[in-house]
């Protein structure tokens, strides 16, 4: 795909100007949520609305992964009865959502962030602690 090709090109050719780290938001407890506050370093690069929407969607996806509902209880009880061997053949709900999140981030990078010289790193690669936003140097954008 032309878009991913240009993304990889950019990663290899463009120099990294800065990195911004979106921290976790613990006001709702230990569930995985990220702060939607717009960092000042990105002001010149991307629309505040757009960025907040991305983070909010990620937050919603993580909330879905950690939701305590009937599905998670059934999964938990069933797993316990099988001495947790069921996870050798079945994927957990959390893992399924993580795959969704990875796909979403890839999509957002391709469509929105790469053309603006930015790159979002999947939080799972940083221990679910931060969303790392890499800001590439401006010269790669002058086209």
């Amino acid at each position: 795909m032309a878009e991913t090709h240009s993304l990889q090109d950019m990663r290899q050719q463009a120099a990294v100007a800065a990195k911004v780290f979106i921290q976790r938001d613990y006001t709702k407890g230990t569930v995985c949520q990220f702060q939607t506050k717009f960092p000042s370093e990105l002001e010149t690069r991307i629309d505040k609305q757009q960025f907040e929407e991305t983070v909010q969607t990620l937050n919603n996806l993580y909330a879905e992964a950690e939701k305590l509902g009937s599905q998670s209880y059934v999964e938990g009880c069933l797993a316990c009865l099988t001495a947790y061997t069921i996870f050798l053949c079945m994927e957990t709900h959390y893992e399924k959502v993580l795959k969704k999140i990875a796909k979403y981030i890839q999509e957002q990078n391709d469509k929105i962030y790469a053309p603006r010289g930015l790159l979002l790193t999947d939080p799972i690669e940083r221990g679910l602690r931060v969303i790392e936003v890499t800001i590439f140097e401006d010269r790669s954008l002058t086209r």
Partner: protein
Amino acid sequence: MITRKVRKWEKLPGKNTFCCDGRVMMARQKGVFYLTLFLIVGTCSLFFAFECPYLAVHLSPAIPVFAALLFLFVIAMLLRTSFSDPGVLPRALPEEATFIEMEIEAANGNVPTGQRPPPRIRNVQINNQIVKLKYCYTCKIFRPPRASHCSICDNCVDRFDHHCPWVGNCVGKRNYRFFYMFTLSLSLLTIYIFTFDIIHVVMRKYPVSHLSNQKEQTCRRIVLVCFFTLWSVVGLTGFHTYLISLNQTTNEDIKGSWSGKNRVQNPYSHKNIIKNCCEVLCGPVYPSVLDRRGLMQEDSSVSATSAAPSSFSSSNPVSQTTKTTAPLIPNEHTPDDAKPSIAASAETSAPPKDEVPPAPKVPPLASPETDAEASIVKDKAH
């Protein structure tokens, strides 16, 4: 310069040992874990060998079958607890660490020379309760709420409960339910064996035929082991059931974080026993954030030694001895940290590990119990 591909677990900092190419993760000291395995497997073997034939014939063949199923469940839970990642938080990469340092310096403003900069704490409000997030100097992150640094494994662990030498691993967010299932099923197994031991001995005492001396001795030994195990394991299961119903960790219980002083209450509790139990035991199964089996490039000419942590790590080595007969972790790296404790009254004092001259910008730790020690050591160093 030769680059080769290595698995990420080979380059992970911390004091864990890995087996099966990164699939298994344990603490460094495994001696007590082998003892646990030996005690469980040994006692059950004796039970199956010497008592089950008699019981199967004279009472019911279902007895050894149920015992075997229970035994397999216990072993499965033990291995699951011991071999899985407890919820280790990976250390901050250099850029992230620098970013956080810059944020801290910006928040502190100008500190006049000679004055100690303020402790690195972030306050966050959770459920109308102010929770303090402490900075970990080893991992270079602000610890999430309920996380703690284990000095034995040298990792920050999410929802840190305690480091259990009996399972040879930390007990944290990812393996707490396996640990609880292990203690619960072990209690049931011990009670089961104990009961049938007694029944067996009683039946043998008033029989028609005469019991051989050797078999009687074995029965008595099993009864003895079971008796001592019973009180400690059942006690531990009871303690953890209490903790689960209140949604607390052993670490919080020992430190008295939510004991009710100064009107502090546990902000994580749902105030409903059933909901708390459901969350802890039947909640989502969290994936490991440590990519152990991922591949990475390694340059063999580059010396990949990371400098020793330049400041004191706020470690909470709550080493829980659950059985009355065991010694505590003989850890050659942190001999002062692990103090033997049977009851939940372990002191969590963390003396500094390295005698490194403190950099002027390094503030002392935030926790009250380490502040005094840190200041004493700093004064001595100056």
